[in-house]
């Protein structure tokens, strides 16, 4: 039982909309798994199926070895959830909401709760209806993170948080991971996922478009390299001939190009005799990976050349 979450061929339709269309997702125990996709890709639907709030039409979903629908109550003792759009009870203060959720779970460590309240700088006396979006989000985060559970299902948990609180959130999630908890982090804040996740799954129109560790995914995509050399024309000629090098171009004394992951060793060998004076290698960011997956949609929106050969990764 080394996988906290196993989803295979999951299908969920709402009327004519196919929200999940054969989704596969594996989250290993103890990892922070980034779950990426634009609005409407099916991230929230997946999490709601995993919580037993929605019943899948087809496919299989296992959560901590149990069935999310029929074992919901038993599983929920071991799972904490933060929705992306938190609605609180309008007449309950934030503190009352946190404690209510804690008691329904079967008790919360007050010291841990207070520590989280302090770190997130939450005023717990404010009534639910008077909180801003970010503060509502903090209430849900404190309630979920104060719980002692194995798996955190976080559905765009930082929507509305300011950068300082975003940093606190990342710190707290890292601590949770260090304690051996598993985290499924749905997000479209790519920097956040890049900072936290061991592995990511990119979902697109209800299917997993790409899944793996960040290192694996990076090796699938090109690294952009800029070198300063004595004879740029010569360098351009030599590099341009190598397999796996794309878009080589010169810019004064610099040559800039993109390299497929597997071709990188060969390129480094070829660079060695060229008298390199400076080297800037820029591995693909998650943003590059993500945009590549959605490149045809971007093209459809008229947003430039992010198609097959073109690349966003470049020298700045």
């Amino acid at each position, binding site marked *: 039982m080394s996988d906290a979450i196993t989803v295979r061929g999951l299908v969920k339709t709402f009327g004519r909309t196919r929200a999940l269309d054969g989704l596969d997702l594996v989250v290993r125990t103890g990892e922070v798994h980034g779950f990426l996709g634009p609005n409407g890709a099916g991230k929230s639907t997946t999490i709601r199926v995993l919580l037993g709030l929605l019943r899948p039409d087809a496919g299989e979903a296992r959560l901590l070895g149990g069935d999310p629908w029929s074992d919901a109550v038993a599983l*929920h003792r071991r799972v904490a959830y933060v929705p992306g759009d938190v*609605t609180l009870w309008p007449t*309950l203060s934030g503190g009352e909401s946190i*404690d209510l959720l804690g008691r329904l779970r079967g008790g919360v460590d007050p010291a841990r709760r207070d520590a989280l309240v302090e770190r997130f700088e939450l005023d717990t006396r404010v009534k639910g209806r008077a909180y801003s979006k970010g503060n509502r989000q903090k209430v849900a985060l404190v309630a979920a993170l104060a719980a002692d559970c194995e798996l955190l299902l976080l559905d765009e948990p930082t929507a509305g948080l300011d950068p300082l609180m975003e940093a606190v959130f990342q710190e707290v999630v890292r601590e949770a991971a260090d304690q051996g908890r598993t985290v499924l982090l749905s997000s479209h804040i790519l920097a956040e996922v890049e900072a936290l996740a061991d592995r990511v799954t990119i979902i697109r129109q209800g299917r997993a478009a790409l899944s793996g560790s960040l290192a694996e995914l990076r090796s699938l995509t090109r690294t952009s390299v800029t070198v300063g050399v004595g004879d740029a024309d010569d360098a351009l000629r030599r590099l341009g001939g190598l397999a796996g090098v794309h878009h080589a171009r010169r810019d004064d004394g610099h040559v800039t190009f993109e390299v497929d992951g597997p071709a990188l060793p060969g390129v480094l060998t070829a660079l060695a005799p060229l008298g390199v004076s400076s080297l800037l290698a820029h591995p693909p960011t998650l943003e590059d990976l993500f945009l590549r997956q959605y490149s045809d949609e971007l093209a459809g929106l008229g947003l430039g050349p992010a198609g097959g050969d073109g690349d966003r990764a470049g020298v700045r």
Partner: protein
Amino acid sequence: MTAVLAPSPAPAPSRSAGALAGTGGLVRLALRADRWTIAVWAVAVAYLVRTSVVGFAALYPDAQARQARATLMSSPAATALGGPGYGLDDYTTGAMTANELGLWIMLPVAIMAVLAVTRHLRAAEEDGRLELVRSQPVGRSAPVVAGLVAAAVATLAVGAATFALLLTTELDPAGSALLCAGVVVAALVLASAAAVGAQLVGHARTANGVGMGLVGVAFVLRAVGDVQAPESGSLWSWLSPFGWSQATAPYVLDRWWPLLLGVAAVAVNLAVAFALVSRRDLGTGLLPERAGRATGRLGGLAGLTWRRQRTSILAWGVATALCGALIGLLADAVVEFAASDPQVLQLFGETDDVLDGAFAVYAVFLGVLAAAYAGTAVGAARADESSGRAAVLLALPVARTRWLGAQLAVAVAAVLLMLLAAGLLMGGSAAATLGDADQVARLTGAVLVTAPAALLVLGLAVLVLGAWPRAFPLVWAYVAYVGVMGMFAAVLPDGADLLSPFRYLPRLPAEGMDPGAVLAVTALAVALGSAGLVAFRRRDTLA
């Protein structure tokens, strides 16, 4: 609702009318969102009014029968729940309609108008829609005007539809026009007063409470006034918008001038509302909000439900209990008046029978109030589900049946306690006025025996929530149906109340106890509720 402002062509620069800019678009938006609600209200009210009038004519075909009815209606108990009694000396079908039905048209239409105003003013502001709207070239007062116009259109539609159907009856068109105008004006006065209240408080639920409170106060003021002196002879009646509309005495005096008071009141309310709206920030009320507790003591779902519902439960409970007490206090007036008029006894039998008959009718009235509360209790559960609050709880180790069951348990307890309190107060005050201690137990029993019907409404609401949540408005339609049947089954065609649970319960104390019927209705209520819980466990949660 997915109503969307249609993209409009570039606005003519000269058209911006300051605080009122953009009103037209907002009115269209509001009417678009409300169009079905308005249509259902108009058709339902108009149809029920026509059916009742036809029922009056059939049930009291000649002057003698109507005169006997008039004698009965002159009793304080009937006056309190009816009208000031114009034309009782020559009780035509028209006079009967205005006196006995008029208030019961005004009351629901006023509630509809008040809810429309608070919905458009505060609810939109609370969920942030208004912020989006106000960021457009839209004036500060425009949403107030739009909300009021939407309420006015709804009220006018109900009034016009009712008038149109009344034209198909034997009633005088001039009187019908005045009756319907009275309904519209009373509703608009209360709606505009609710608009003022909505500026004072910070939230939609509170604003709804303020609006409903105003309707209740208006109802009680005219009840007190009319009981003190018939034909609007008391100042109290003239403090109530319902009193003004009733003072027009449709079909009897046919005077229009009392409606001028209403028109003036609407103007004053609007002026105050506009003055207030320019003084407060978006998303706040003029009255300050208190801070809450930093840590919570709420221990569970029942505690949460009570915390969320207590205002509603207490409001419904106090209203029901006060109605019970009022009915009990009027008991000796019923006896006096029965004894004073041999004709009544001839028609309705012994004095005790007259009294018990009246008590049986009012017991059902109290049961209907409890049933309406039951509908709101399940409606609150549905609102929690569609807002996403339920999902947060269901993601905890909380079974669905526990989540809904805890709310049901609170609702069942509230229904029973509310009826017990109303029965005890009705029995106690009747015992005091009649000097007959036995009434306490008799009337408490009479009121409590309606509980299975209220619980059946609760069970049905749970079934709709579990099996067909999007059809929840049907529950309100059913509550309205049960209410109308509880009050007016006697004048409606035979079998109209076949679907009302109150029909099948024994009418204590006028009839004997029928344990079989009580058990059957209770069993059906439990079955519906259980089926609802099972269906709820099987379906996807909303939102």
